[in-house]
């Protein structure tokens, strides 16, 4: 493995010299099954009494990290979440899936991808992971940005929208889902990867593993401990419901459908 940037590693034995330390950022989001409602006052969406979960792409990221560890390609997995105290639940889920320890960066209020990337950069300076695996997109803000922003701040390569990740030639080989198909990149380490849906199918944590996860450590930090200014750069002026689509009519036959498309909608 090539020499690394921030921090460096002090691995002595042959085995660990080849294996990576992994960091997996996990975000607490409104569960993907919830149909969100816009607040009447237009300031945001209703999140009180709504089911919260780990961002689905982050489950895929945790799963990939655990598989790398099971294959012997990784030594340790650290799950990190930034947000309110309740993010502990998502860190516990990651621990139950197989992560070794957690870090909560406690903050109430909006955290934009740039701020999250700065917080993660500060954690990375302390932990010196070889590989950070994030989700490609959080399903609440739909930003699709944090991984790329973190890679930029660290000056690391990025392999976004990964459908395959393989340690290879002292770095990693990433297959990416792109417009038109797939492409393969070789990245030097340390590196950033973001997950796409087809990378793997995340496991459910077993009950014994959920019990074991309760004993795994979670460290709590504040943005100020990391010296990071997390002030948002975007002000949300309003949040509205998109125009509602009306259900149309049922047609009785294929003939009627084609007739309507030709003569009523005039789209074919």
């Amino acid at each position, binding site marked *: 493995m090539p020499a690394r940037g921030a921090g460096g590693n002090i691995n002595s034995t042959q085995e660990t010299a080849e294996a990576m330390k992994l960091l997996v950022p996990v975000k607490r989001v409104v569960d993907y099954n919830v149909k969100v409602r816009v607040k009447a006052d237009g300031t945001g969406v209703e999140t009180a009494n709504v089911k919260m979960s780990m961002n689905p792409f982050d489950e895929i990221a945790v799963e990939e990290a655990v598989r790398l560890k099971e294959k012997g390609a990784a030594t340790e997995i650290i799950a990190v979440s930034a947000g309110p105290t309740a993010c502990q639940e998502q860190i516990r889920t990651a621990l139950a899936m197989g992560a070794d320890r957690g870090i909560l960066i406690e903050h109430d209020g909006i955290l934009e991808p740039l701020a999250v990337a700065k917080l993660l950069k500060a954690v990375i300076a302390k932990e010196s992971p070889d590989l950070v695996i994030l989700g490609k997109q959080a399903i609440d803000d739909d930003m699709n940005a944090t991984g790329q922003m973190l890679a930029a701040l660290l000056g690391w390569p990025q392999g976004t929208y990964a459908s395959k990740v393989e340690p290879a030639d002292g770095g990693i080989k990433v297959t990416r889902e*792109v417009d038109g*198909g797939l492409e393969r990149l070789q990245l030097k380490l340390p590196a950033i990867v973001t997950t796409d849906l087809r990378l793997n199918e995340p496991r459910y944590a077993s009950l014994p593993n959920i019990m074991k996860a309760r004993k795994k450590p979670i460290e709590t930090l504040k943005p100020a401990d990391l010296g990071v200014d997390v002030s948002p750069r975007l002000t949300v002026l309003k949040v509205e419901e998109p125009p509602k689509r009306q259900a149309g009519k049922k047609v009785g036959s294929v003939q009627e459908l084609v007739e309507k498309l030709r003569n009523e909608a005039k789209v074919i």
Partner: protein
Amino acid sequence: MAVLVLADHDGSAVTQPTRSAVAAASKLGDVTVLVLGPRAAAESATKVAGVAKVLHTEDALYTNGLAEPLAALLVSMASEYSHLLAPASAAGKNVMPRVAALLDVQVISDIAGVVDADTFVRPIYAGNALATVKSADPKKVITVRAASFDPAAAEGGSAAVEAAPKGEDPGLSSFLGAEIVKSERPELTAAKIVISGGRAMGSSENFHIIESVADKLGAAVGASRAAVDAGYAPNDHQVGQTGKIVAPELYIAVGISGAIQHLAGMKDSKVIVAINKDEEAPIFSVADYGLVGDLFKVMPEFEAELAKK
């Protein structure tokens, strides 16, 4: 101050989503388009309505769109522009956040509207809400949802081509190869008609039913996540929150239930047709024309009916 648009192209012309990004950029200032690739693609950009200048290089460093050198190039050019935009394609979404972080600004992803030079509308929560956000950053880095902006006309402009600056190579990654499927069909995000198949197709062989109707209609082919996950259709066919966003004149959903993540990618289509054997399927709640029936019976009939004039 001028605004910069990073173009996607197919080797000979800039893409329609790029022309949508030009349309969004035109509301912000004089548009310069950056084209990395063959001269023909740069020539096509000069003709796009509203483009004031085209910057072009064939430098092999950018041939494969690696994010690290591309972001370095854009950052080196950024001082001349108030806004840097790209279509919210896989390429644009990959590089623009990297550019933004290097400039210490928050990227504004996937905008669906321009209010003023600082204020933009963007969908959140799978398009279930629209947020109007005002950026306090001195420079804006933006990706543009093509389906929300009528593309600038491909003809009518007469911009000059100048050489793009030479950028650094951070040397962090290398391109190994790609499996890109070249299709004769129109591109999903540019097509006037899209027909998509879901899990109900059952196999990749059966998916040909969709393709053959697509060919009758001159349509692009899409798919639900379930159909892609099952291997019936390639990954880049996925329509939805985390796939492609489309808004064609006509969208036909075949054997697709209508999960919110799928609706997020197609509910702005002008006319929606749903074909599903379950009359309770949520897709019918957004469909202009719904046909309840077994697709394996309906689709051959549909194809035959289309053949009749």
